[in-house]
């Protein structure tokens, strides 16, 4: 009886997706997302098939499975961190069920089991299963390979429920991210300097689990415990206010006044309004977390010998990192404010002032990202030039492109929608805007550096950026004219809640 209702609820949930307004509308976006899904799935499968070979290279003495087991605790922690910050807590439309004879415990169980039915949680199996077939079965027995896969699924569940519990219990605030990153960094450093090896602990522990037929019971118990922890949380917090968590306004540090912005008059007011917008919505906050994670992009790129002699790619990476906040937020510039766009248009805000505010906000984002990426300067003077040129180009060229073409986004952005990987409000136009910004400079650098030293290419792009900064007034006026032409279409699109 109980589980029947849960199945019904799950069906309703799927219907909600397929019957959502606009599900059939933006086919182009869906196709693109579909292609991306296939693309990533094939990369995962590919990785799965060759993971064994890769791990063989990592260690000469250890078998691939043992290396994998050694890395498992790290993966668990990393996945937990990502889930803690990115994963939206599941909620249920409680009032609709409260009047029906559905037991509360059924609803709670549904809430907790829901993510277990979500395909996204099992994407990693695309790596794990080929690896198990190719590299576990080959060295050991089929039973061990099977246990390895089952163990991994149980670990996914464990992570999923522990993250949900931690999030329900502690909520997520911006401050916890650096703390967690420091802890993870610390563990990695201890490992690196051979003080304490979490790898060794993890390897022996999971070896024991997988080679021992009863080992699975321990993982299952851990997953069960995580589940019970959630149940316990809900029994302690009976009322739905705790169920569907709400923003509490006691955090005046990020939400209160920004008195230093006062002296910039209306421009300052508009900027501080947008900062509050960012910190009071999950969708925008997760954008900030994502940006922080992307700042590590350079570790992959700058260390890789593959890209060492690829100036175009190097510049792409530099531009991406030093402009990450600008790119993430700026691709929906104006649209973020769609819910009160009529207010922007009718209150005493001259369009030029509004444009200036957006310009300086994006400049501030660029400065922040630039400063945060300065540690990469230790990679050599080349990186310094690269980042400076990228910063100038972002500020002097890309911002104006975003402000000019931003007025083509006329779909309402729902700030209260699901937070991470949210494509609500995305149309093919959003991609059309971002594509040239991402790839054009890379191509320019590639072409110039084919004939001249890379620094010449960088100088050209830096000069373009400088010109943009010097001529910002006429450029901004151009954006204002464009905005004035498009504002009726934007306002109309933003009013449409569908």
């Amino acid at each position, binding site marked *: 009886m109980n589980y029947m209702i849960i199945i019904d609820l799950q069906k309703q949930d799927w219907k909600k997706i397929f019957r959502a307004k606009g599900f059939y509308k933006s086919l182009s976006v869906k196709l693109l997302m579909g292609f991306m899904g296939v693309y990533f799935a094939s990369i995962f499968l590919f990785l799965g098939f060759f993971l064994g070979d890769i791990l063989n290279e990592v260690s000469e003495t250890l078998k691939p499975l043992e290396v994998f087991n050694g890395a498992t605790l790290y993966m668990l922690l990393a996945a937990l961190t990502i889930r803690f910050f990115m994963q939206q807590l599941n909620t249920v439309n409680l009032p609709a069920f409260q009047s029906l004879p559905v037991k509360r415990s059924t609803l709670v169980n549904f809430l907790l089991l829901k993510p277990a039915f979500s395909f996204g949680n099992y994407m990693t199996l695309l790596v794990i299963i080929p690896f198990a077939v190719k590299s576990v079965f080959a060295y050991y027995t089929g039973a061990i390979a099977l246990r390895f896969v089952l163990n991994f699924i149980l670990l996914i569940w464990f992570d999923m429920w522990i993250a949900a519990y931690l999030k329900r219990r502690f909520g997520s605030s911006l401050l916890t991210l650096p703390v967690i990153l420091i802890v993870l960094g610390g563990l990695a450093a201890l490992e690196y300097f051979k003080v304490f090896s979490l790898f060794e602990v993890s390897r022996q522990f999971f070896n024991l689990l997988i080679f021992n037929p009863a080992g699975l019971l321990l993982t299952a118990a851990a997953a069960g415990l995580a589940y019970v922890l959630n149940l316990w949380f809900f029994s302690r917090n009976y009322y739905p206010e705790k169920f569907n968590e*709400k*923003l509490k*306004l*006691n955090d005046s540090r990020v939400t209160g006044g920004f008195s230093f912005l006062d002296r910039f*008059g*209306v421009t300052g*007011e508009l900027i501080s*309004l947008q900062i*509050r*917008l960012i910190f*009071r*919505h999950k969708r925008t906050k997760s954008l900030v977390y994502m940006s922080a994670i992307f700042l590590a992009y350079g570790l992959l790129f700058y260390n890789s010998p593959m890209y060492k002699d690829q100036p175009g790619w190097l510049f792409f990476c530099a531009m991406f990192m030093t402009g990450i906040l600008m790119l993430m937020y700026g691709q929906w510039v104006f649209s973020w404010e769609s*819910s*009160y*766009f*009529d*207010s922007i*248009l*009718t*209150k*005493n*805000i*001259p*369009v*030029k002032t509004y444009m200036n505010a957006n310009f300086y906000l994006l400049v501030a984002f660029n400065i922040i990202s630039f400063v945060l990426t300065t540690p990469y300067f230790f990679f050599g003077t080349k990186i310094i030039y690269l980042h400076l040129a990228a910063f100038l180009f972002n500020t002097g060229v890309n911002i104006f492109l975003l402000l000019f073409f931003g007025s083509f986004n006329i779909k309402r952005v729902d*700030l209260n929608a699901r937070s991470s990987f949210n494509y609500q409000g995305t149309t093919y136009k959003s991609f059309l805007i971002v594509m040239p910004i991402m790839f054009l400079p890379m191509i320019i650098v590639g072409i110039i550096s084919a004939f001249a030293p890379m620094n010449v290419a960088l100088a050209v792009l830096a000069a373009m950026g400088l010109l943009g900064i010097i001529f910002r007034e006429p450029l901004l006026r151009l954006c204002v004219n464009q905005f*004035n032409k498009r504002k*009726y279409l934007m*306002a*109309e699109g*933003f*009013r449409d809640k569908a």
Partner: protein
Amino acid sequence: MIQISNLSKIYSDVTVLNIDSLTIPQGESFGLVGNNGAGKTTLFRLILDLIPANSGEVMLDNAPVARRDEWKSLVGSFLDEGFLIDFLTPEEYFKFVGKLYNKSEGDIALFLEGMKDFFNDEILGDKKLIRDLSKGNQKKVGIAAALISDPKILILDEPFTALDPSSQIRLKRLLNELQEKDHVTMLISSHDLNHVTEVCKRTVVLEKGKIVRDIQTGEDTLKELESYFAV
């Protein structure tokens, strides 16, 4: 104060608004009534330059509004929740709007003090966000924010709906005061004929985008309107 000439708005071949000429002098309180789809909100949006006209123009203070900024400092308006910034607390919102019109913190505090009656102790002081307020309280916040700038022209779309009876009476009192003391030019739409005749000196009836009645409010106005709308 407000001059409208040859104004028309067409949505996919249907003319939703067509006004040859309409002048609203300074200090007049102008009521707009009409059934759903008569074009009331369209007219307000055209005056506020939120939608482009297919022909004609709107002039405020002898300057056209379309794609201009100058008129914005004269006008206070509240049409719908698209005028509210719902992730702010009411205080933050009032402060934000006040600052746009160069009001000091002192001015804003003084203004809110004057609104205390209208707010009925429900809006200020809580740390609630606007999106968590009831519809009626959201409306009060929107109306107050339209007034914070001491506007010369006030435009309100359906200000009485969603308000409780006491608040409706308080709002009427407030609007009448603004007319008498500050000679604010007012444009107010309503479905409730009573409210319009009580607040406005002039009442205009729109039907299918056209002005069909233009009445100076007198003793018989309510009856005349009621007989017009009678089915």
